[in-house]
């Protein structure tokens, strides 16, 4: 019982993931600033932002549906944190695992987007509503490629459990390389999920102010910001676990350090991409996803199936 509480509240649960989320935000922002040839924020910036938001007044828009408006940020944060518990971090075995946990993680990762939608929609401001509609529209475009690109390695490994997948690729490291295309697809989809440039369409500042979050302030906004940070960490961890499952057998400590490095690598790739592209339009984004991303993801799936067939 005590250990379960420890897992959930401290490590790898709430406390750890919050700190890691803040660190990831710092790295993202600092790296972005560096890439833009400026100094960027100091190391404590995400923490200061968070504390400040929590201590700030939370305005409730009169027209909003207050229950949903208040509930959504909490749901989002909970879902994002829960997802991390299924991802292997210091060894091939995650804290919790069962057959089908890949699907659970993917669905848990979908929940924040749905909460952005609902929260934005029920704030009843035009900008939030357009932002919300865009979030959900975009969801349909990147979700399928993301599912496909994660399922392909799972098919090859013949398991629906993340931990078992890690074990399998630990034994057959060369197959991991085979999923290279899938990695890029998943990375692209992750950009869409995290609503970062070039896919930051749902919160495009110059068009719809801040999208779904336009009406959120204070504590509730802090929840949403944490969610996005944690989503980034969880998404990156998922990619690390599925596509970069190396070195986990070297013992918990080395494994854990490697895990951190891998996640940060993915975060760095995300920041890089957000500095070198322009934001696409929603129709271009959907076009791009269906014309290029989804077919490649599908091809990856077929390739994995074929490889599995060859291996028997």
């Amino acid at each position, binding site marked *: 019982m005590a250990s379960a509480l420890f897992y959930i509240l401290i490590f790898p649960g709430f406390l750890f993931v919050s700190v890691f989320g803040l660190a990831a935000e710092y790295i993202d922002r600092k790296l972005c*600033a*560096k*890439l*833009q*040839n*400026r*100094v*960027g924020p100091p190391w404590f910036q995400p923490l200061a932002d968070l504390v400040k938001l929590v201590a700030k007044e939370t305005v409730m828009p009169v027209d909003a549906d207050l229950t949903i408006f208040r509930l959504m940020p909490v749901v989002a944060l909970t879902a994002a944190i829960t997802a991390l518990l299924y991802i292997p971090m210091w060894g091939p075995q995650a804290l919790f695992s069962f057959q089908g946990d890949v699907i659970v993680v993917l669905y848990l990762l979908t929940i924040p987007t749905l909460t952005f939608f609902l929260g934005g929609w029920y704030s009843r401001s035009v900008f939030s509503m357009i932002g919300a509609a865009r979030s959900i529209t975009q969801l349909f475009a990147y979700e399928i490629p993301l599912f496909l690109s994660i399922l392909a390695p799972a098919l090859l490994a013949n398991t629906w459990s993340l931990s078992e997948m890690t074990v399998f690729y630990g034994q057959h490291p060369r197959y991991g390389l085979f999923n290279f295309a899938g990695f890029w697809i998943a990375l692209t989809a992750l950009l869409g999920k995290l609503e970062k440039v070039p896919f930051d369409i749902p919160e495009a500042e110059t068009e719809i102010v801040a999208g779904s979050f336009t009406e959120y302030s204070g504590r509730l906004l802090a929840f949403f910001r944490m969610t996005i940070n944690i989503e980034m960490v969880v998404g990156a961890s998922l990619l690390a676990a599925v596509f970069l499952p190396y070195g986990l057998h070297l013992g918990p400590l080395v494994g854990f350090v490697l895990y951190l490095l891998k996640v940060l690598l993915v975060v760095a790739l995300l920041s*890089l991409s957000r*500095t*070198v*592209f322009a934001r696409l339009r929603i129709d271009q984004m959907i076009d791009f996803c269906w014309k290029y991303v989804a077919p490649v993801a599908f091809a990856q799936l077929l390739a994995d199936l074929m490889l599995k067939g060859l291996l028997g």
Partner: protein
Amino acid sequence: MIRPGKMILQVLQSLFQKPATTRYPFVKAPMPKGFRGKLRFTSERCIGCRACMRDCPAAAITIRKVGEKKFEAEIDLARCISCAQCVDSCPRDALEATPEFELAQLDPTKLKVVFHANLADVEDEPATKT
């Protein structure tokens, strides 16, 4: 060649370059010589002709007679647009523009600056609230 990520090389280079950011405000960066910032008034030179007041587009400067051939100037920094027309208009070079630009104040009454006549040195003090 049209491709995505055209700026990637340049962007990655920045990673290994020093940022373009100046160290201001930790290291003071003087404005170029001739920058028009806060005005300075030399009371001894002023003859009280008020040409500066007449030409000021923002009514920011007031010359007051405080004694026989003694004048003090009050400059309202909240109004002065740093155009230095008063400097051009002054027949006696009693006014000049300095490059001082750090004029921010939390208290608006401190934005009124009076250059007193009786002091030998050029000295400015915040105006007492009128």
